[in-house]
């Protein structure tokens, strides 16, 4: 089917708050208003120009039913079309992209936020598990990550050093990222010496929940060309959900991530994913990050460690990725924001001159759900 009637969609601007362990002196609405205001300022557009607001957050993390209800004013959604996607913000971007492509909006604002510091992250994740089999035995995000890491190491023959290298790489990038609040960065020795939290995973190898908000402005081609110095085109998007039962997923792989990537690449007309210059991925652990890169078809199973070498043509998580900073429900949209700002040359993560990026977000327990975007300038 011809897609000539569909609009091209670009990221016009993006902004986030600092991501830190506790935004104790601020409420959700403050973080949201800050990110949205900054994103609009960066676009040259006014809130009045926004046709639709898509927001992403979690009732359980927020402690409120229909929590978006209380935050609409801070999002700038008052008297606008609005929809809440109760999944990671990258899915909100997919909705907004569809709406603009369809001709249903010219400008969309995508907002994602969370404050995991206000509640128990373990309770949040375990509440996602169905209540009869997995939840009663105590499956949560850490044990799920540990089981998946165990499977990955067994399938690939890699050892814990591979995990240490990934984590240290991400933490080093995050420490240099002005938007991530860190107390320095653990080096390889620090990572290797950190406590086992979900054997074989150590404390610095699992994603650290942080508070924060992010906002991305998407626009149709004509508006994007007017407003953005460098429009960042969303050339493809795809998502896929794996089985809810952790034990029924393919061990050592992220099959749903691969399906999402194939769908995004097909839509973008991409046959050589290795040509991306940037990969911003949302992994729950160092092992999951390696699995994600492999599922994105950037390396064969067990070989994604090579992507972290200095000679690798792809920069992995120049922002640091999710391990040092995981604002649950917003992480994927932060990846999109980061990749777009890098491609547009608005932030320097050592990736200037790069022309394309692949962006990944995940949701659920043990990363059951996956969303992939392809970006191009």
């Amino acid at each position: 089917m011809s897609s000539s009637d569909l609009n091209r969609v670009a990221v016009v601007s993006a902004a986030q708050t600092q991501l830190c362990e506790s935004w104790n002196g601020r409420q959700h609405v403050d973080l949201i208003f800050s990110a949205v205001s900054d994103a609009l300022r960066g676009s040259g557009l006014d809130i009045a120009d926004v046709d639709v607001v898509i927001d992403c957050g979690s009732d359980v993390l927020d402690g409120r039913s229909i929590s978006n209800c209380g935050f609409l004013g801070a999002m700038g959604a008052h008297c606008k079309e609005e929809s809440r996607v109760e999944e990671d913000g990258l899915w909100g971007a997919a909705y907004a992209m569809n709406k603009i492509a369809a001709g249903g909006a010219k400008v969309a604002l995508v907002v994602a936020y969370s404050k995991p510091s206000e509640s128990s992250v373990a309770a949040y994740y375990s509440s996602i598990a169905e209540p009869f089999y997995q939840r009663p035995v105590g499956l949560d995000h850490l044990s799920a990550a540990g089981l998946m890491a165990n499977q990955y190491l067994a399938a690939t023959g890699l050892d814990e050093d591979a995990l240490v290298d990934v984590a240290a790489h991400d933490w080093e990038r995050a420490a240099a990222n002005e938007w991530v609040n860190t107390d320095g960065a653990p080096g390889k020795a620090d990572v290797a010496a950190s406590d086992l939290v979900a054997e074989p995973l150590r404390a610095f190898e699992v994603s650290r929940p942080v508070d924060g908000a992010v906002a991305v402005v998407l626009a149709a081609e004509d508006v994007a060309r007017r407003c953005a110095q460098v429009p960042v085109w969303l050339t493809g998007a795809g998502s896929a959900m794996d089985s809810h039962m952790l034990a029924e997923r393919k061990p050592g792989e992220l099959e749903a991530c691969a399906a999402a990537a194939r769908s995004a690449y097909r839509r973008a007309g991409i046959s050589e994913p290795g040509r991306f210059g940037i990969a911003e991925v949302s992994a729950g652990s160092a092992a999951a990050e390696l699995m994600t890169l492999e599922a994105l078809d950037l390396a064969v199973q067990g070989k994604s460690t090579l992507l972290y070498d200095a000679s690798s043509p792809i920069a992995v998580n120049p922002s640091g990725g999710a391990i040092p900073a995981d604002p649950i429900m917003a992480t994927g949209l932060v990846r999109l924001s980061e990749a777009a700002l890098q491609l547009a040359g608005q932030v320097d993560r050592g990736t200037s001159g790069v022309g394309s990026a692949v962006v990944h977000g995940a949701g659920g327990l043990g990363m059951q759900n996956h969303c992939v975007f392809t970006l191009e300038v």
Partner: protein
Amino acid sequence: MRNVAIVGAGQTHHARRRTDVTQAGLAREAAMRALEDADLTIDDIDSIVVCTGPVLFAAVNQPEKWLADALGARLKPVVRVTSGGGTGLAGALSGLNQVAGGAAERVLVVAYDKLSEGALQYSISTLYDPFWGREFAVGIMGFSAAYWRARMEPLGHTEEAAAMVSVKNRRNAIRNPYAHFKKEVTVEDVLESRPLCAPIKLLDVPPISDGACAVVLASEGAAKSSPNPAWIRGMAYYCEAENATSRSMLQSEPLTLAAQKAYKQASITNPRRQADVVEVQEPYTCFELSYYEGLGLCREGGAAELLASGATEMDGEIPVNPSGGCMGANPIGAAALIRLAEVAQQVRERCGDYQIPGAKVGIAQAGGGWANLRGVAVVSSNRS
């Protein structure tokens, strides 16, 4: 914008409590019925949208993750869209945008709630800001009653008029095989029923239900194989900040905006004349009166008169809630999608005993939250 049609719809037989299936089983049942109605299998579906009420209703966070296997959705795109009671319509709108945006040819939208499982009022009361007002909350009933009180005098939304909504919808529900609350009442019964949050009384309130509904959306190309698609001619969903300065207790601005947009998309300039059937989501009887006005079926303050004239009865000029509305069954997370499914089935002439003869254009209204999330859809048996 590309044309999108509903090519199949299904509902469970809603019940006070379904003891035989889990939440996943309930959703699957409606999904299978919708697929059967569309003469499709899950393999034909490109993407799934799940809609539920707030997750605190039923103890499973992000339930679409649990449902994926029961729906046969493994390795397909699955996402959940929520909007309080309006989740079903909000989900359908996101599905529509998937099709219109070229991301999918066929989308299955499935909405459900198993209200029997949790403490409904407790969980919905957390809608309120924990710092500010939650201690006074009675779910959405407290503020709904307070706002109704404010509308009584200026708009004539009297207890008698609301009671007539209850009488009409409960009578209509008797012919709806999916409704479970099938008991006729009189205006006197309603007025004498126990006040819960005055002026809302027991018989102004819908039942608590377990139920699910599903709808198959298709692109124009995919709809070619369907004998009688219901074309979605317009759909919009708006919000207002719940404590904004401009919030009116008399009329709902998001409803007005959503209706304006949906009508414009559908070339509706006189809904009362151009529509053959309407389904609205009335969490309490008083809301239906408001919707008559917000949807432009009558002037502001004219709802009681419209209702008393019989115009919104099954055999009236503009039947509203031939399904019985929420009074017949109210699985909150499904209720909004049920309204859309009902008007779609009306214009596809699949409503059997409660078919409105010759229905060609239908309007569906839904919403939720702090009565500040509102959507409207227009469906038609004609594509344009």
